[in-house]
């Protein structure tokens, strides 16, 4: 007599959950720990939803009064209030450095020819993104570029406004990047308005000519046009970014920190399997008429269910107690599921490498902390060396942060989560496959 693989897996899963309930470990990891994390994050960021100041840098190739006026008008028109602290940086190089080390979330560089009459128009694409991490541009910037790629056919390329940003998943970086992009879009809109105005003037009078310095009248018209443009609808709708309060940030940090605990929890769960090897119960399971795969899958499912529950409980607690905004419910559930699966798969793979429960425990803690650091759960990735910044894009927690960040900060729906979900799925598949090759080692003596 032998059970089907499905029945065996369900039996093992049920018993694992009963054991975790009996020793209360599921209560601790599934409910108590998320509650503690929620409380810490909620109180740290304030339950009232006070805005968190973000730092945005502005640098000028040539700090003319025209350029300053246009920027001030754009910032004022963006209605940023006390949400953003805008600082002027001495040079584009200094701005790039500050963004690279994470001291400034993002910035805007005004080109030298910006104030010249010939470059009132900005040739397309009007906004150039300087991505500190080559090869990856965040969704916000991609959206922006899609909106502003308008080739007016006028002006030299040197007049492009540059947005300097980090493409990795730091909260400050993403928010500041979005704001920088918004300001750039307003500058672009103002320049377009001025182009039109300049065109009219050229047709009707002796107005500005290409290559000449702007007259006082040009400057006045430029300022007026910039202010007018700032009052028009922005090319990028900031209201969709959930940056009015820090509720989204609570949601984002809630998921960010819990991912680290999730991995450690998953590691401890799989370590329990290694302990069973020593205790003898795994030997008895191996002697039973069920496959090793059924045993491992059943036990891993229990760890996975616990992980998903802990994330969902954290979500519910931060929403109910601190009014956190994690984003679309469907997206949150999908991200919690995909993240838990990826982390459990990795933990299972590490357990398959370990010779005993002590090694499994040490591996889960060490790898969890390293992933937390590299993936951006503890520090902004921008503060890491460029090599590690690249590595962060290989970590499951890094991609989990991208997904949760898009949900909480950009307000995307499920369609906006395709890439993080797909990559987390790939990571899960890879680690499950790797663990699968060593599945007998997990179970055998």
């Amino acid at each position, binding site marked *: *007599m032998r059970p089907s693989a499905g029945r065996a897996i369900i039996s093992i899963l049920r018993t694992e959950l009963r054991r975790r309930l009996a020793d209360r470990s599921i209560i601790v990891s599934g409910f108590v720990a998320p509650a503690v994390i929620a409380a810490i994050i909620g109180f740290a960021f304030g339950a009232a939803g006070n805005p968190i100041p973000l730092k945005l840098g502005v640098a000028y190739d040539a700090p003319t009064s025209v350029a300053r006026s246009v920027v001030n008008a754009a910032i004022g028109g963006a209605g940023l209030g006390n949400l953003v602290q805008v600082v002027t940086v001495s040079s584009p190089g200094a701005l790039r450095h500050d963004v690279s080390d994470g001291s400034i979330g993002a910035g805007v560089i005004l080109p030298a020819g910006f104030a010249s009459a010939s470059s009132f128009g900005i040739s397309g694409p009007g906004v150039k993104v300087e991505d500190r991490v080559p090869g990856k541009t965040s969704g916000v910037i991609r959206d922006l570029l899609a909106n502003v790629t308008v080739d007016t056919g006028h002006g030299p390329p040197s007049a492009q406004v540059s947005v300097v940003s980090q493409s990795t998943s730091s909260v400050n970086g993403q928010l500041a990047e979005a704001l920088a992009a918004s300001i750039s879009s307003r500058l672009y809109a103002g320049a377009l308005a001025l182009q039109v105005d300049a065109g009219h003037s050229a047709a009707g009078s002796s107005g500005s000519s290409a290559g000449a310095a702007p007259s006082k009248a040009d400057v006045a018209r430029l300022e007026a046009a910039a202010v007018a443009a700032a009052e028009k609808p922005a090319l990028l709708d900031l209201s969709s970014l959930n940056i009015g309060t820090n509720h989204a940030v609570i949601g984002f940090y809630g998921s960010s920190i819990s991912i680290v605990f999730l991995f450690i929890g998953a590691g401890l769960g799989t370590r329990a399997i290694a302990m069973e090897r020593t205790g003898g119960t795994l030997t008895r399971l191996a002697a039973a*008429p069920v496959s090793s795969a059924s045993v491992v899958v059943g036990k891993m499912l229990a760890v996975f269910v616990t992980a998903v529950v802990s994330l969902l409980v954290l979500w519910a607690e931060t929403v109910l107690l601190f009014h956190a905004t994690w984003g679309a419910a469907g997206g949150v559930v999908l991200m919690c599921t995909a993240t838990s699966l990826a982390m459990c798969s990795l933990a299972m793979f590490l357990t398959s490498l370990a010779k005993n429960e002590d090694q499994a425990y040490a591996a889960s803690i060490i790898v969890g902390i390293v992933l937390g650091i590299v993936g951006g759960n503890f520090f902004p990735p921008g503060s890491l060396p460029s090599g590690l910044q690249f590595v962060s894009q290989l970590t499951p927690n890094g991609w989990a942060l991208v997904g949760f960040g898009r949900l909480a900060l950009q307000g995307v729906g499920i369609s906006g989560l395709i890439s993080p979900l797909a990559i987390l799925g790939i990571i899960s598949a890879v680690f499950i496959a790797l663990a699968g090759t060593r599945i007998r080692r997990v179970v055998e003596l």
Partner: protein
Amino acid sequence: MAPTAPVLACRGLTKRYGNRTAVDEVSFQIAAGECYGLLGPNGAGKTTTISLACGLLEPDGGEVLVEGQPLFTTSVDLKAVIGYIPQEIALYPELSVVDNLKFFGRLYGLTGNRLDDRTRAVIEIVGLTERSKERVGNFSGGMKRRANIAAGLLHEPHLLVLDEPTVGVDPQSRNAILETVVSLRDAGLAVLYTTHYMEEAERLCNRVGIIDGGSLIAEGTRRQLVAQVRGQDRIRLVAPGDTDALARACKRIDGIDDVVRRDDGLELAVHDGRSVLPAVVAAATGTGAELSSVEVMEPDLETVFLALTGKELRD
């Protein structure tokens, strides 16, 4: 019950870990209704042999046949006829005996009333009915061992494999465990029993294999093993006073090979102590020796083990 076709046959089993050979060309077989004891000191290779016989390890050489079919680590169906009782308490301490047994029963395909009935039955066999709903973690060592055995009996296996099931057990539980094994053997199960307690092997096993350093160095019934090492019975006579006349008389009795003087009497080396004993008592009466005690000592497996390996069983 007369032995029939082997339920378990191990042929030339070999298992190596690096340069160390844990099990070296071990062969034996067990028929239904037979209890085979694997006797050896700690580290002799008993547990590795059992792990190979249960399909927990893949051998580097040789084969295992269960009911005539080759057994591999992946032989899921064939494992259903084996009841494995590991040396460790392989139960979940957070769960009750009933919950543990029902879980393991389900893994052997038991469901519904059948599962309930079998759970009740094995709990009764091991004498834990009164405490079946208590957590295993709260049990004494002996009770845990009994529950551990119950889990191996649930699915009514044809082959029962017990790996030192009485280690660290109180005398009462030990006796209960041994009685359970005897009754299962008598009910027709093939039993493979490892131990380093020779008295258990003598009490339970129809045949014994002596394993040392990974090799099976002798096999047979106790009598066969004793004969193999030419073991002799010894008769110890305690007689105060002069025993010279008695010693001379004993040397003339057929079946007595040697007479050794002791401080308090004599020790006789004989082929069959029980058959020679009446003549020895008659000789004592005839010589006027006053016997205060007579003891017949038959050679045991400990003696055999010492003779074969040159070391004590519990080394």
